[in-house]
């Protein structure tokens, strides 16, 4: 059991929309092993992003437990959460969410600033990562000067920057063409081959087919895992 890196138990999340409760997630239970490449599929509005937010420690569930790398993150104090986010989680967003004011290198390096890595090491690590992801000649480009696929690879490099326990990607190929999608999937597979645990939310069966396992989520709960 000690190769389980993510353990999600009986998670539920109720949002209040005014006075009306919205049951975004209920009774979600699953686990992910170290080094697994897992995809989460489900219709829009089924609660995938909500789940990613909770696993990524961006918000707390209404009930249930999340254990990452042996730490019960759902009972950690708010003051400790930023550290958990830095050390355990790397996020890849659908819209890349790079800071336009910074270069590719700057964006990757930014992820390490909050964890007191020396400047020299930050730049070295960011360069190595970007080169590994095929962006060696794009280091000093701004996001606006990069293609969608390049931007998404920069954001993957950013997610990798602190060597997180888990990479969470919420529809990372949602806005790119099939060629770019394949390049992104290849990037994930490269990371997986180095032992990185990855969870990808996707609508695309061509992404899911590369995964070790698919979790299906419908109406706020996991219906089947294969």
């Amino acid at each position, binding site marked *: 059991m000690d190769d389980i890196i993510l353990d999600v138990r009986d998670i539920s999340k109720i949002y209040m929309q005014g006075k009306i409760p919205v049951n975004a997630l209920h009774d979600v239970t699953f686990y992910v092993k170290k080094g697994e490449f897992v995809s989460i599929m489900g219709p829009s509005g089924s609660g995938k*992003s909500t789940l*990613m*937010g909770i696993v*990524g420690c*961006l*918000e707390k569930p209404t009930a249930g437990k999340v254990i990452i790398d042996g730490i019960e993150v759902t009972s950690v104090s708010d003051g400790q959460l*930023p*550290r*958990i*986010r*830095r*050390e355990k*989680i790397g*996020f890849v*967003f*659908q*819209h890349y*969410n790079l*800071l*336009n*004011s*910074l270069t590719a290198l*700057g964006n990757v390096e*930014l*992820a390490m*600033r*909050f*964890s007191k890595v020396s400047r020299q090491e930050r730049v070295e690590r960011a360069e190595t990562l970007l080169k590994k992801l095929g962006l060696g000649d794009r280091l000093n480009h701004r996001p606006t000067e990069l293609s969608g696929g390049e931007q998404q690879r920069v954001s993957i490099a*950013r997610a990798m920057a*602190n060597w997180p326990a888990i990479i969470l990607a*919420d529809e990372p190929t949602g806005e790119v063409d099939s060629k770019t999608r394949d390049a992104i999937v290849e990037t994930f597979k490269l990371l997986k081959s180095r032992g990185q645990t990855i969870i990808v939310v996707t609508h695309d069966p061509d992404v899911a087919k590369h995964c070790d396992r698919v979790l299906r989520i419908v109406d706020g709960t996991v219906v089947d895992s294969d």
Partner: protein
Amino acid sequence: MFDIIIRSATQRKVRSGLTVSGIALGIFALVVMGAMSENFNQTFENSMSLTSDKIRVFAESGMFGGGLTDDKVPDVKRVPGVKDAYGILLTTFDEDQMGMSGKQIFALPPEKSRIALDPVKLKAGRFLEPGDTYQILVGTSIAGEYDLQIGSKLEIHDKNFTVIGILEYTGSFFDSTAAIPLETAQDIYNLEHSLSTIFAVPEEGIDSDILAKRIELNVKGTSTLSPRELQEQASQSLLIFSVITISSALLAAIIGGLSVMNTMLMSVTERTREFGILRAMGAETKDILLITLGEAALLGIIGGLLGIGIGSAAVYLINLWLAGKGIILFAITQRLLVVALLFATVIGTISGLYPAYRATKMSPMEALRYG
């Protein structure tokens, strides 16, 4: 984090520029008003230190009420503890400007001019001497404005005077003072035997406060100001002046601060997602505070430097222009510059507090949900 702060501020050039201008304008006002008040302070302090040893004796009815006459001088001199006493008649130098220039004529017995002006030294020429009539001793500002040399003629109240001495620069009211013999003044102004005030010099080791009271008791119809009382009276009006000028400038600077708050609130609201991303990446609350407060402080500092720069330049130019008229209106002091810059920074930072607080309250889920 500094590069992020700078990038964020420079990304919105126009808005940051306007905000900086707002602060700069406030600080400009602060510098100009402050410089004016500093100048008054300095002149006052210099004047006080130059005349601190004399007790002023007035008519009971006050300095301008008239009634103080020559015959009181021997009475004052007779009071035990008084080393010397002499009468002074003060009139305005520029009658057509009704004294607005601050220049004055100091009419005194010629033989007393050296001790009355002590410790002011001569730049050229000599002090007034017994027997002088239409001779005049001028301060540097007056000499500068009228381009006077020893031997130059100067017209006062339709009479021609010959410059026989020019005083050294003192930074006090002596610079805008011209001294002429008392009898000449009483004559040309038709003020026979009238005096504005009597200067009483205490003997060595005599307490001037006590001596001032003794003069009041011994010489009928007089009131006195000891150097300490004069200082107190003057610093009070000086304080009021400072408060009025500085507080109007502070108001201007606070309005600049409000524009920082407005800019920062807009900037923070626009960057909701950016802060969400930073939080999702593990930024601490203090990192977010640093970025937002840093930007606000930076706007304040740049605005402050700009305001100080423009304000100092303006003050310098006005001083230069007024120097020709023998007036110095502003003094830029180090403490004024330090206070102005500190104030700009503090205003910027304080104005950034609420926007920064708002930024820390933004949910990291923003990064995930909205595209």
